[in-house]
């Protein structure tokens, strides 16, 4: 070793060798994938095909259904239930925007300001998950009850006059109105907004804020020019994680709403489980899926984060 005059080129310690070459087990990945993928193909992909075929069937429960390529079911379903479709998109969009407005400060607080309280606040965000969401949604019935403190306060501040004029509430009640449903949706999906926002905010180097301050940026300018653009991946995945489930949800509309606030999820559930009109139900569910895939693709293109998914 002492005769070695030239040192060997130093190994770059920070760049681990990406993929160790594998000689053995060319089939190993396929064996690893097989059971799980089989499960997803049989119980996720195949059902979609069955649903597609159900949506173009005609017949009746008594005499059985047959595939007759009856695409008119789609048209009938759309023309009958378009108000529920529009309402679902509208409620889900409202809930998503509210989630973003409410969730951003909390995610920001946890990421930059919480200090040693960070873990505790994190626990308090996640822990409600473990109480069944139906129980928590039912609790909103108590909170928003007619003549309860919340409704009383909104009434004395004349907020309900304004919201009733806008059509969000009716008279001096909140329960069984659109406001209650959107409030429940916002509440239910808020953690799905906070967690991705927090993850992307946490990655931001705090020195960037100092740099912006050194360059005489006001706090709001720093937020607008530095923090918010850097948190875009979190905003995009957060809005997707709230919008998609909110658009298909029927629990909030059922528990907190009325027949005037029925969403498309309620219709699909009723058609499938009570009316037993399978072709219509399948067509509705397919339209919902297509609409959401379309909107999501458009949104991802627009926000320029295609690498996200």
């Amino acid at each position, binding site marked *: 070793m002492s005769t070695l005059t030239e040192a060997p080129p130093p190994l770059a310690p920070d760049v681990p*060798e990406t*993929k*160790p070459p594998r000689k053995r087990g060319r089939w*190993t*990945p*396929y064996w*690893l*994938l097989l*059971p*799980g*993928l089989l*499960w*997803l193909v049989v*119980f*996720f992909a195949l*059902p979609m095909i*069955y*649903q597609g075929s*159900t949506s173009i069937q005609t017949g009746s429960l008594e005499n059985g259904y047959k595939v007759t390529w009856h695409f008119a079911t789609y048209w009938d379903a759309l023309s009958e239930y378009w108000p529920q479709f529009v309402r679902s998109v509208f409620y889900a969009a409202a809930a998503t925007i509210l989630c973003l407005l*409410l969730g951003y*400060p*909390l995610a920001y*607080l946890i990421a*930059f300001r919480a200090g040693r309280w960070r*873990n505790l606040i994190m*626990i308090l965000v*996640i*822990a409600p*998950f*473990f*109480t*069944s*969401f*139906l*129980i*928590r*949604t*039912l*609790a*909103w019935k*108590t*909170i928003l*009850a007619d003549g309860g403190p919340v409704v009383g306060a909104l009434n004395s501040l004349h907020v309900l006059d304004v919201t009733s004029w806008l059509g969000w509430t009716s008279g001096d009640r909140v329960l069984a109105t659109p406001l209650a449903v959107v409030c429940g949706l916002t*509440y239910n999906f808020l953690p799905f907004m*906070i967690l991705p926002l927090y993850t992307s905010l946490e990655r931001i180097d705090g020195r960037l804020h100092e740099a912006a301050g050194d360059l005489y940026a006001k706090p709001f300018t720093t937020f607008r020019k530095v923090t918010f653009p850097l948190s875009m991946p979190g905003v995009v995945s957060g809005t997707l994680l709230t919008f*998609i489930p909110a658009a*298909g*949800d*029927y*629990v909030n509309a059922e*528990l907190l709403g009325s027949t005037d606030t029925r969403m498309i999820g309620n219709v*699909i*559930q009723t058609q499938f489980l009570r009316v037993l009109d399978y072709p219509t*139900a*399948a067509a509705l*569910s*397919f339209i*919902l899926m297509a609409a959401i895939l379309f909107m*999501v693709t458009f949104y991802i293109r627009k926000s320029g984060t295609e690498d996200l*998914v």
Partner: protein
Amino acid sequence: MAFVNWFKRHFVVIAGLLTLGYLLLPNVVVTVFSFNKPKGRFNYEWQQFSIDAWKDPCGVADMCGSLSISLQIAFWATVGATVLGTMIAFALVRYRFRARGAVNSLIFLPMAMPEVVMAASLLTLFLNMGAQLGFWTILIAHIMFCLSFVVTAVKARVMSMDPRLEQAAQDLYAGPAQTFLRVTLPIAAPGIAAGALLSFALSFDDFIITNFNAGSTVTFPMFVWGSAQRGTPVQINVIGTAMFLIAVLFVLTSMVINNRRNKQKA
């Protein structure tokens, strides 16, 4: 002016804490109303303080039965999804193979699909197959939607793992099995645990997919749903409160253990 400045400086903290309050308010209400003695069938109005429900949490017909069904399904769904999901995650991170992109999309799609669509399509499959709806169909469905979440959690952990650790093990003459059991698996364990915990929570709390594919089997969320129409017993609030407390205790304990371990290492 002083107040305005103070408000400006602390805006984020105030707004964040208000949101936290909004998130926790229902849990407070659930806890408070677990000590209620309601008149009539519904537990929506405060009447009188009582600890009756806490003394006899299983006093309602069928509730604890549904709880036990939910726990069983959540347990087996967690086992199934964790095993299958971990295998997929390892294959995706560790190997290059054809159709990797297609596999990734197939994993991603269930997470990006509204639950009601998956629920309805599964029901059409089961109806077409003439399957008996119940415990098994619920379990199949739960494994299906938990799978993607496990894959994502495990993948994230395995991807951030230094491959040199495994090479080092092999340089020290560890066989492939030994390397996997003594090096790879322990490092991947936190990701696997996170995936398993998430599966358990998702399965235990799932309502929409279960509602479609349960037949006459009643899980705990199904019981709560039914009780919203028939009358909610106070015991539901007791279970809700207990679940919240157990979760907080669980997380706090694991944090304390982690802290101790870190201190020992330091």
